[in-house]
C-alpha cells in the first residue's frame, strides 16, 4: 500500500476531485512497488530522468521548426513512464494506470481525449491528424494543443510523483520530490514558450 503522504501528493498533483480512481490505481501499483528496493528504483530513476532531460533538450530544439514535435516528445516520455512501471516496478500491463491517469486529467484538459490509450501505451494518431489537417483559426489550434500538452505534462508529473513516493525511505522520497520539482519547472518553462 502507498502511504497517505504519497496518495496525497498524487491528489495534489492532479488537482481534481475524483480521488477514488487515483487511489485505486496507486493501491494496485503500491503493492507491487514495495518489493522494489530503493537502490534499484533510484538507479533506474536516475536513468529515466537523465533521459527525460535529453528529451527536454530536443523539445527545446525542435519545436521552433516543428511545433507538433512537442506533443510527440511528451508522448514518448509518458510511454517511457508506463514502461518504467512495468519493467522496474513490475506492474502488470493490465493495470491500465496510464489510462486511469489520462481519464482523470481529461476532466480538466478535455482535449486529452484526442489521445488514445491502449495496453498501457498512449498514441497520438488522432491528435496528429487533427493538427496536420487543421482548417480552422491558428489561434484556436494553439489553444487546443496547448491544452493537450499541459494535460500530458500533468500526467507525467503524476507519474514522477508516484515514483518518488514509492521509496521506502522517506528522506529519499523527499530528495526525489525535489529533483522532480526541478524537472517539472524546466518542463513547464519549455511548454510555456510553445506556439502551435
Amino acid at each position, binding site marked *: 500500500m502507498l502511504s497517505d503522504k504519497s496518495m496525497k501528493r498524487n491528489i495534489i498533483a492532479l488537482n481534481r476531485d475524483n480521488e477514488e480512481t487515483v487511489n485505486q490505481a496507486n493501491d494496485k501499483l503500491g503493492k507491487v512497488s514495495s518489493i522494489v528496493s530503493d537502490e534499484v528504483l*533510484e538507479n533506474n530513476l536516475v536513468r*529515466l530522468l537523465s533521459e527525460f532531460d535529453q528529451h527536454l533538450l530536443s523539445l527545446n530544439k525542435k519545436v521552433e521548426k516543428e511545433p507538433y514535435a512537442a506533443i510527440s516528445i511528451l508522448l514518448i516520455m509518458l510511454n517511457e513512464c508506463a514502461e518504467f512501471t512495468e519493467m522496474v516496478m513490475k506492474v502488470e500491463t493490465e493495470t491500465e494506470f496510464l489510462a486511469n491517469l489520462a481519464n482523470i486529467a481529461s476532466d480538466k484538459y478535455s482535449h486529452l481525449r484526442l489521445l488514445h490509450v491502449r495496453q498501457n501505451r498512449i498514441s497520438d494518431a488522432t491528435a496528429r491528424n487533427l493538427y496536420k489537417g487543421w482548417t480552422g483559426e491558428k489561434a484556436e489550434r494553439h489553444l487546443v494543443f496547448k491544452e493537450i500538452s499541459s494535460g500530458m505534462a500533468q500526467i507525467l508529473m503524476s507519474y514522477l510523483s508516484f515514483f518518488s513516493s514509492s521509496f521506502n525511505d522517506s528522506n529519499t522520497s523527499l530528495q526525489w520530490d525535489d*529533483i522532480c520539482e526541478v524537472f517539472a519547472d524546466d518542463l513547464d518553462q519549455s511548454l510555456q514558450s510553445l506556439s502551435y
Partner: protein
Amino acid sequence: MKMQIAKLLVKEDILSLEQIKEAIERKYNSDMELSEALIELGYITEPELMDFLGKSYGVPVISIEDHSVDQEVLELIPSEIAIENRLIPLSITGSALTVAMSDPSNLILVDKLNFLTGKNIIPVVVSERSIIDMLTQYYGYSKNQTDFSELSLKPTGYDDIDELVRELEVYKNGDTSEVDKGSNTEVEDHTQSTLTQESLHAEQVESENDIPLVSDANEEHIDESETDVIHHVGNDHGIFEDSETQDEDQVSNESGDVFSQNLFINAPDNKDFAEVSEDQIQNGGDTLEETNKAIEEPVELTSSSQGLNSIDEPFAARVEPEFETQQQASTLDAVDTNYPSSETTPNDINSNGINKNVLVIDNSRTVQKLITLALNRQGYSVSAVSDGMEALSCLNDVKPGLIFIEINLPHMDGYQVCKIIKSHGLMKQVPIIMLSAKDGLVDKVRSKMAGANGNISKPFAASELVEAAQRFTSSNATGLISGQS
C-alpha cells in the same frame, strides 16, 4: 600594450626611458592603456606604433574601419574575454579565425583563443581606438565596464609602477639577469623577453668583438641563457601540452605565422628549442619572427606525426608530468597556484588519500541534481555549475578530485573547457569525464583529444556515475589517467 612592447620601443631607441616612464604614470593616473598614453603625449603616432608592432611580431597591420562582423563570428569569443583582452574576431576562413588585437605580443592569449574557439587564430594588428569602437558596437563595451579580471585569459600584469620602471631601467642597462630575477610577470612576456635579450646580447657581443660567439668569455653566459630559455619554454610546454591533441586541421595548419607562434610556445621537445636558441645566438640574434621560423620545422614534424597518431593512443595517455612548476599556474588567474596545497582541508582528501570533491559542469539543473544525489550517496561532495566560465572561476574553491563536463555548454563547449582545465599545470592531473548524449566515435575521439579521461553517455544510470567516480578517484587513479580507462 604590455611591457614587452615598451621594452622593444626603448631597445629600438624609438622612445626614451623617460618618455616611457611618463607614459606609464599617465596610464595609471588616467586609467588608459600605455599605447593611448604614448600617443596622447605625442611621443608616437598611432600608425607608427602599429607599424612597429606589425614588424616586430610579424603580423599584418590592417584597418578595420567600416568592417562589419558576422554574428556567427562574434559568438565564437565571449564578450567578457573580448573586452578584457581588447580583441575582436573579424572573420572565419575555413578553420582559421582572424582576430584583431592591439597587442600581438601575447602568444599565450593566441593559444588560449585557439583552444577556446577550436580555430586557428590569425592575429592582425589594429589600432586600440578601432578595437574599442568595435567592442562598443558589437559587445556593448563601455569605459566603465565591469571588471572581468577573474575571467581574463591574460596573466597578471604589472601593478607596481616602481617595479615596472626599475625593470625598464635594468633592461635598458642590459642587466638581463636582474630582469629575470625581479620579474614576476607573465610567462610569455618572460619567454620573449629572455629571447630578445639573448639576441640583443649576442648582437652586442658580436658587433663589439666582431667574432662569432664562441669565446670563453661568453660561453658561460650562453649556457646560462640556454638554461633560462629551456626553463621558460618548459613551463610553456606544460601549459600547452594539448598541442599534440589538437584537431587534425590544426596540425595541418595553413597559417604559418600563427602556427609558428603556437609552436614557439608548444615546442614539445626542449632539446630542439635549446638547439635553436643556441643557433640563434650564434647567428648573432634574429627577430622573434625569424626565431619562430627557425624552430618551426623540427617541431612541425613532431607535431604532425604525434597529432595524428594520438587518436590511436590509449585514452588520456598524454598527460605529461614534465615542467610542473608554479609558473604554469599564472595562465589561469582564478586557479590556486598551490593546488593541491596545504590549504586543502582534511575533508578534501579522505584517510585513503582520495579527493572526493567532484565538480559537475552541466547547464541542466536536473542533471546537476541527479549526479549530486547519486554521488552524495557514496560520500562524494559535489559542486555543480552551469557553464565553463563559472567552472574555471570556482576550481580554486572546489579543489576537485574529479570533474564531469557536459559537452554542450553555453559560451564554450565542454571540449574547450576540458582543454583549458587540462592546460593548467596543476589541474591537469584531475580526471575529467565528458557527459554527452553523443556516443559516436568522433565525439569520443574529440573528448580524448581534449584531454578527457573518460566518457559517459546520457542517459546514464546512477551506478555508471558511481562506478566512474570510484575508478577515477581511487588511489590508483594515476594508472587510469595514463590510459587504462
